[in-house]
């Protein structure tokens, strides 16, 4: 399958990608997740053969692709906005790339029919793409991408330009389409929800480096750095100083906070930042880290409330099933096993 080894490239004299290593296994969907400018699309371009890296190699089934031109790599692409041709109907949009490749009409016909069958648009071949719904357009773009029978599919921010409601709907459809094909997929996005929904494995990128790789739940629940925690939106952060490693305790402005454990890389007295995921806070008066808290606001989020409380000057958010009135005093417990601790401030 695909192996990317020690890829590096500069842009305008500055490193754009540094020591990028990963692989994509058979049937696997991996997601390159990171903010804009982190180098995600450049990785796709290098894999596709459109950009030559300064260093590093791309292998397919063990073979070095360096000398293989893009059109011989048999990789498929799908883009933001889908880039469908409005002057062509559904069938012709899917057929277009096959004809450019010089395939004869019988093969074009059978491949297009097969691709439209997979995306369940076989009956809409004659329909103008202009008249299609967003979901149907996405399926045409997907059919077009798989019609040449690619060995690897690369999707570059396919949903980035859509409004939230449509994005959620199409995300679900796309997830199903990807599950129905056995083509390995590299999916690029800056949106963590998309990444978590689509990926078997996430590669988190920042400033051209892969910071973390793993299954979505692991990457989300154990961000490898404070930057990663920030990226995932963990805004509950408290500065502290390590009181002791065993038991693991940190002195903070809200009081002493107990953790499940502190690794031996930390030393007593060291400055640390505690990150408290909203899901780590219970409204409870039992536990290792019980604090009285004053409610500042409750914000309705559809299926729950995000409640912001204040503990001795520190603001902390938590999730609650019901709204709590501002000004009320409640007791919260911070679950030690869900706390995250990072060195430095």
């Amino acid at each position: 399958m695909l192996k990317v080894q020690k890829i590096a490239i500069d842009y305008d004299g500055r490193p754009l990608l540094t020591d990028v290593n990963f692989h994509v296994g058979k049937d696997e969907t991996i997601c390159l997740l990171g903010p804009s400018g982190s180098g995600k699309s450049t990785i796709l371009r290098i894999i596709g053969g459109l950009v030559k890296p300064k260093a590093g190699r791309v292998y397919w089934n063990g073979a070095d692709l360096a000398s293989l031109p893009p059109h011989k790599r048999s990789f498929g692409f799908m883009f933001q906005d889908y880039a469908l041709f409005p002057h062509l109907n559904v069938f012709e949009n899917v057929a277009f790339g096959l004809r450019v490749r010089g395939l004869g009409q019988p093969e074009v016909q059978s491949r297009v029919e097969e691709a439209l069958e997979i995306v369940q648009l076989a009956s809409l071949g004659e329909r103008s793409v202009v008249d299609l719904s967003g979901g149907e357009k996405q399926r045409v773009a997907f059919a077009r991408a798989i019609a040449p029978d690619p060995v690897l599919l690369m999707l570059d921010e396919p949903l980035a330009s859509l409004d939230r409601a449509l994005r959620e709907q199409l995300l679900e459809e796309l997830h199903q389409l990807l599950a129905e094909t056995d083509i390995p997929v590299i999916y690029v996005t800056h949106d963590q929800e998309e990444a978590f929904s689509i990926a078997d494995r996430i590669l988190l990128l920042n400033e051209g480096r892969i910071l973390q790789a793993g299954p979505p739940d692991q990457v989300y629940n154990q961000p490898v750095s404070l930057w990663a925690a920030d990226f995932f939106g963990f805004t509950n952060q408290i500065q502290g100083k390590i009181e002791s490693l065993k038991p693991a305790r940190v002195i903070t402005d809200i009081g002493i906070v107990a953790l499940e454990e502190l690794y031996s890389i930390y030393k007593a007295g060291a400055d640390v930042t505690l990150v408290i995921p909203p899901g780590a806070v219970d409204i409870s008066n039992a536990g290792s880290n019980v604090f009285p808290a004053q409610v500042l606001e409750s914000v309705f989020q559809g299926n729950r409330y995000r409640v912001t409380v204040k503990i001795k000057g520190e603001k902390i958010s938590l999730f609650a099933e019901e709204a709590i009135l501002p000004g009320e005093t409640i007791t919260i417990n911070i679950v030690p096993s869900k706390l995250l601790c990072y060195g430095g401030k």
Partner: protein
Amino acid sequence: MRIVKNNHRGEKVWEYPGEVISKSKTGYFLRAIFNRDDLPFNGVLFRQGDEFLEFYPAGKWFNIYQIHDCDSKKIKGWYCNITRPFRVNGETLEYDDLALDLMVYPDGSAKVLDEDEFESHNLSEEDRRMAKEGLLELKNLFSGSGGFELSEFVKRR
């Protein structure tokens, strides 16, 4: 902006005005109007007044003209020149045409044109190699496996 087409020796053979739609690190997008008499060309009739949306990708060995009929505005095809990378000097965009062309029809069928002329030119090995790579890249763009720039182009219609 003036668009100047040179031959492979860098000698001017044609020039015409174009309106800049956008310019970026990706390249230049220009709009020009076909100002010659109607011209049948490899199965397509170029008509006086047809709109040419011209994409000059930075550093690439080709350009792409997306041709719209002057009346119906429908796409007649994509005419692609294999060239040395374009240069811009003030208000002039200039390129050296290496004769080799790719014509892509609206249904996706494609034809490589003027291969004999290309072969007959006295070109350096580097020019020949890059021209052939440019042609491969063009086919790749249109076939969909790597159409990053084309995707941008299509969106600008």
